[in-house]
């Protein structure tokens, strides 16, 4: 009986890994590939701020000097590559922080 349960657990774990892998792949496609095709128009809040005339109250960003500020890798001429690289870095950093946090936080079996 226990071997049946073992097989079940193994199959479940494998398909769970597939789901995790699929989401990572989709995220990479979005952040690296699709992101440079995203609309460059101001977002809802920026647009409203411009419309009502309070956009100028925004200060310079403290991390504007970051090598990937505004989702552009500095020094990379090609715009699509630049955004794609920034997206790749963002996915990697978010994954590292989030996986570490949630793994540390989980209830131990």
């Amino acid at each position: 009986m226990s071997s049946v349960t073992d097989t079940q657990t193994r199959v479940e774990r494998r398909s769970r890994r597939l789901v995790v892998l699929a989401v990572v792949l989709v995220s990479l496609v979005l952040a690296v590939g699709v992101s440079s095709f995203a609309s460059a128009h101001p977002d809802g809040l920026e647009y409203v701020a411009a419309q009502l005339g309070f956009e100028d109250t925004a200060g310079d960003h403290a991390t504007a000097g970051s090598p990937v500020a505004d989702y552009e890798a500095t020094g990379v001429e090609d715009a699509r590559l630049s955004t794609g690289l920034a997206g790749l870095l963002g996915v990697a950093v978010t994954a590292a922080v989030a996986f570490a946090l949630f793994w540390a936080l989980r209830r131990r079996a």
Partner: protein
Amino acid sequence: MHVPDGFLDLATSAGTAAVAVGGLALALRGGRRELDDRLAPLAGVTAVFVFAGQMINFPVGAGTSGHMIGGALAALLVGPWTATLCLSVVLIVQALLFSDGGITALGTNITLMALVSVWTAWGAYLVLSRLLPRRLSVVPWVAFVAGFVSVPAAAVAFTGLYALGGQAPIPLDSLLTVMLGWHAVIGLGEAVITALIVGSVLAVRPDLVRAAQPYLERQRLEIREGSPA
């Protein structure tokens, strides 16, 4: 929706920072209850997906764009406490690395997106799941509504914060009107994305969708010992 530095005065920013810290402290305790070996990696990829999804601005007409927030999606997939943490991780990475959302505004952005949008969505889910029939097929529709309300809710909350500490003398009623107007449209995009993704995961592994749990609980098979009556 990412608020830059300077829109709100320092007192209001300090207030939202305190709210964010309090919310995060609660979420760290609540997240511990939601996460186990099975769900921790899923929570990790949920944060990754929210980061990637937020990079994709879609046009909403007249020179404006919007992107998903992902608060509703994360809440329905991994539970509200873990979703609060997912969104916070994303917002911190965006502010520190990509200058997306101000540093002094980080508390404001966590309050608006990791708290208001996540918990409005979760509230909508709780209400709707009680009102609607107990069928798994309603969950994507619940996700649609939860996704929709989560965006204008954050827009209203921003207007409220602006009333407290906005740095420019703007008529608040017109601020509320245009914020609500645009974010209702963006909310429709959020609704579609949330419903599609929750629906997709539901089709493959319904047991991995937190919002589907009450629909999956069935009576367990029991093996009783003893002689038959």
